[in-house]
């Protein structure tokens, strides 16, 4: 006879999502996976068997368990979730097994914190800080929580019930707060309002040692944020193997990768010459390597490929505050050279322009996993998820992105905007394949965000799109996509993976979107962005104001022939008067196919999403955001300064 022991490590949201940069996001996610691996190791050593998720073949857990030498680098991607279920014998004391899990992860965390402290703070803190050691000890000892509950194998809701009673309490924190994790005190121990010079002295010296790329001006961190930022640099001592974090792509690097690839192919010599000049004049080494990490092998070593993508943005180069040079007289020639690169031919009939400033953050997870476990059994679900996870990294890489986390049914990745939706579709198909023909679906959210938007906000927006829009709002098995601009959602679109179209069977939503985007490209397309504005205005008049806010759908009055309305607008724009012209009909269908809402029917729980526009007895609803998203993609996420 056996019992199930459910274990959960936290706090997850605060630890992972509070990230200033992409490397912090990966760092928090990876560290949590690593600590989870140590907790699992403790459980297995105490006689428990991890049954959910299936981890026997997990590379990170295998690496932690086998002990390793200097040549055995750990996997570089977090793959273990923060909660798991173990099977224990009926007469085993669950508190003993849980204590073994706790000892395992606490020992690993303690070792990591000690190494970071010794490497970066041990000498400086007593000299320049106030009670820095006490702050460090308090925060590192009291940050984590491990909750556990043991129960009957048939009781799958025990952990959810335990989580209804949140008991984790961070310690009381006095003083000024961390600029990344504001619920914890910053490490200097001084108050800025009355002890600014002392506080600045602490952080200035630390910044001088670590470099401004590692600790930005105005950053003042708590112990937990500091460990998250720095542990990878002491990984060999702290965790037993090296982690490669030197060239982690930033959001700007991710946004620029496809442009870089195109530019290197079309104007490699000019780009390399520009890169050489930048290296000569930039005060801080501009060769961050983030873009090159995402490029194919053949072009990765080009000089320009290793340049931080910031240097391909004109506003950055023009700013003495952002792009610090050894000689101000070099700024204008650099700027002019960059502009000249932008005017070079791109080999496709146009000019290169400058890179997009928008990138995509993709978040995906399986739908109703709890119910799936009940109907299919835990073993079947775990095996399918393991199969899905094994392929995620390659799928993301094939789309020129970087996976931040892939474990269980969860995926978090950063991608260039032109490949993000294809990647989402590929993940959805892989998820269904992993479950063969069993009733399992995946939902995803893609946020197209400005590269300088706060990363925590973008991640929060992705969670909102996934949970509230794709899942709760559209019935799951859905994709929600949004454009996040200036701290607000400018466009919000949701659809089932396949959607009903004007003529013929349902089509993949991504294809409908790409058809429209192609027709909206400024050089070649036949649909202008003014069509969107006019349709928005007309729908607003017909349906009321509800139709003109991001994410909204509205019901036109009975009898309105939407196709005829669209056709009239297109004819007007093309200065055409033949409504039967096949080209006009094709363009009309492209627009109409994106206007309708495509929720998953509430009545239909079948595994393949059955688009059900408005439901069987519900009138058709229309919204403009699909077209607005297509227009954004057609423009490649460029702001005015990036136009050639």
């Amino acid at each position, binding site marked *: 006879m056996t019992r199930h022991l459910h274990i959960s490590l936290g706090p997850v949201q605060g630890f992972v999502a509070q990230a200033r940069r992409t490397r912090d996001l990966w760092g928090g996610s990876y560290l949590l996976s690593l600590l989870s691996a140590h907790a699992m190791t403790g459980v297995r050593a105490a006689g428990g068997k991890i049954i959910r998720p299936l981890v026997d073949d997990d590379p990170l857990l295998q690496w932690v368990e086998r002990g390793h030498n200097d040549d055995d680098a750990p996997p570089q991607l977090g793959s273990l979730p923060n909660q798991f279920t173990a099977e224990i014998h009926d007469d085993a004391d669950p508190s003993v097994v849980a204590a073994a899990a706790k000892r395992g992860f606490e020992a690993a965390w303690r070792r990591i914190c000690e190494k970071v402290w010794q490497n970066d703070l041990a000498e400086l803190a007593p000299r320049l800080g106030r009670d820095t050691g006490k702050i460090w000890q308090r925060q590192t000892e009291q940050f984590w929580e491990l909750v556990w509950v043991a129960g009957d194998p048939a009781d799958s809701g025990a952990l959810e019930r335990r989580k209804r009673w949140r008991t984790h309490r961070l310690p009381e924190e006095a003083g000024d*707060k961390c600029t990344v994790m504001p619920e914890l005190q910053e490490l200097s121990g001084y108050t800025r309002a009355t002890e600014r010079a002392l506080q600045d002295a602490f952080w200035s010296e630390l910044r001088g040692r670590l470099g401004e790329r590692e600790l930005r001006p105005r950053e003042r961190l708590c112990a937990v944020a500091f460990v998250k930022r720095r542990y990878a640099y002491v990984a060999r001592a702290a965790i037993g193997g090296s982690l490669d974090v030197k060239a982690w792509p930033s959001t700007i690097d991710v946004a620029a990768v496809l442009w870089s690839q195109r530019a290197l192919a079309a104007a490699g010599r000019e780009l390399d010459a520009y890169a050489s000049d930048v290296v000569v004049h930039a005060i801080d080494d501009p060769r961050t390597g983030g873009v090159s990490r995402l490029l194919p092998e053949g072009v990765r070593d080009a000089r320009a490929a290793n340049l931080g993508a910031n240097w391909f943005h004109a506003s950055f180069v023009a700013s003495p505050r952002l792009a610090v040079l050894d000689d101000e007289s070099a700024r204008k020639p650099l700027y002019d050279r960059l502009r000249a690169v932008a005017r070079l031919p791109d080999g496709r009939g146009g000019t290169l322009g400058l890179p997009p400033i928008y990138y995509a953050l993709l978040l995906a997870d399986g739908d109703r996993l709890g119910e799936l476990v009940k109907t299919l059994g835990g073993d079947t679900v775990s095996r399918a998820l393991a199969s899905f996870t094994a392929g995620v990294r390659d799928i993301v890489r094939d789309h020129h992105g970087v996976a931040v986390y892939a474990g269980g049914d969860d995926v978090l990745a950063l991608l260039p905007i032109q490949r993000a939706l294809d990647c989402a579709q590929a993940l959805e198909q892989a998820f269904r394949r992993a479950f063969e023909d069993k009733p399992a679906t995946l939902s995803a959210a893609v946020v197209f965000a400005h590269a300088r938007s706060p990363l925590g906000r973008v991640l929060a927006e992705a969670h909102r799109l996934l949970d509230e829009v794709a899942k709760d709002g559209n019935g799951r098995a859905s994709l929600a996509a949004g454009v996040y601009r200036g701290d607000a959602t400018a466009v919000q679109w949701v659809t089932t993976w396949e959607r009903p179209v004007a003529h013929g069977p349902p089509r993949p939503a991504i294809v409908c979107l790409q058809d429209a985007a192609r027709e909206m490209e400024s050089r070649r397309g036949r649909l202008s962005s003014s069509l969107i504005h006019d349709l928005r205005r007309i729908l607003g008049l017909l349906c009321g104001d509800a139709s003109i806010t991001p994410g909204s759908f509205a019901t036109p009055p009975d009898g309105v022939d939407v196709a005829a309305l669209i056709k009239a607008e297109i004819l007007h724009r093309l200065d055409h008067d033949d409504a039967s012209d096949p080209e006009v009909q094709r363009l009309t269908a492209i627009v109409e196919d994106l206007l309708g809402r495509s929720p998953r029917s509430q009545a239909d729980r079948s595994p393949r999403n059955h688009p059900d526009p408005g439901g069987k007895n519900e009138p058709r609803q229309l919204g403009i955001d699909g077209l607005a998203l297509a227009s954004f993609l057609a423009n490649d996420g460029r702001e005015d300064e990036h136009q050639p």
Partner: protein
Amino acid sequence: MKLQLAAIDTWFFRDSTPFHMNDSPQTGVVGMFPPYPATVAGAVRAALARQAGWDGQTRWRDELVAVLGDGPADLGRLQITGPFLLCDGAPAFPVPRHVVGSDEGGAAWTPKALLRPGRHEVASDLGPGARLPEAPVDSGDRCASLLEPGAGWWLTLPGLRRVLRGELPQPQELLREGELWATEPRVGIQRKRNSRTVEDGALYSTRHVRPSPRVTLGVALDGAPPSWCIADSVIPLGGESRLAACQPWNSAPEAWFNPPGRDARTAVVVALTPVLLDAAAPRHELVIPGARIVSACIDRPLRIGGWDSQARTPLPLRNAAPPGSVWFCELVDPAAFHAAVVNGLVRAGAGTAAGFGLCATGSAPTWETRK
């Protein structure tokens, strides 16, 4: 003295996120609503002091200190109740977290069950004696563990009274948060004096709150002289130089509740304002006279701090159970419990003089107690 505070334009109440010039908190600064009790208490104390002749700059004279206290921890003779969110002048409360339901495909959240302590103790990190909250077996939903609290929903006063009697709220007793207030992103700049263009890097973003015209804040004050009345005035409230129109709050129903009967062995306690938790208590939990907590429905704690304007230093960040938190208690000393309850309300935790820790008590749902 009962006051109703109405927003003039928007309000900005910030959480603990650092908000200094030349700092760049990585998520920007998000406004919150309703404000914490200490924020309203501070604004009201300052307004009372000005009414009594304070010039707004110098330290309070002894006469003011005797009534209003001195500093953030000492409120003198004042006892503040609230703030409450008012809709059409009547108080509304976050849906208690033991009310769980579901929303299917974008439809409104529908309450379906009241959680209560499970019948059996469960082995967990909570230790012996703790029982996890669970839905009754007759809740009518095969996936009771998937039912969620009504985040983003509020209850009218009759609705909360109904819940504390052990019944589910009626649809007309539920208020959607989106209908009560909206958030507005704002961008602030610092301009150069000579060119009136933006200083390089001098840009910040906040999110203000615009309450619906139906929504105000209600607060009751005891301990101030009647002549220090601040009704029919405009007072600063919150950050970014936002203002509130202060009016008498006379017409609203009193927020009273029916406590458990004298022979009851169980009680349900629901937080109406944030409850500052005691770091020394077991599990940092609530201490209620005469009651032993056997289960609870509590979300992640709020982190509440503030600014000590006298010492010019941040106040310590402390943990607080959010409004809507629920504790299921067994009455080990009913007399002590009932002595602490007035009109079905009990104050618990720290900072109760400033409005923290106000809880409503109820008689249901009940559950089988253990010896």
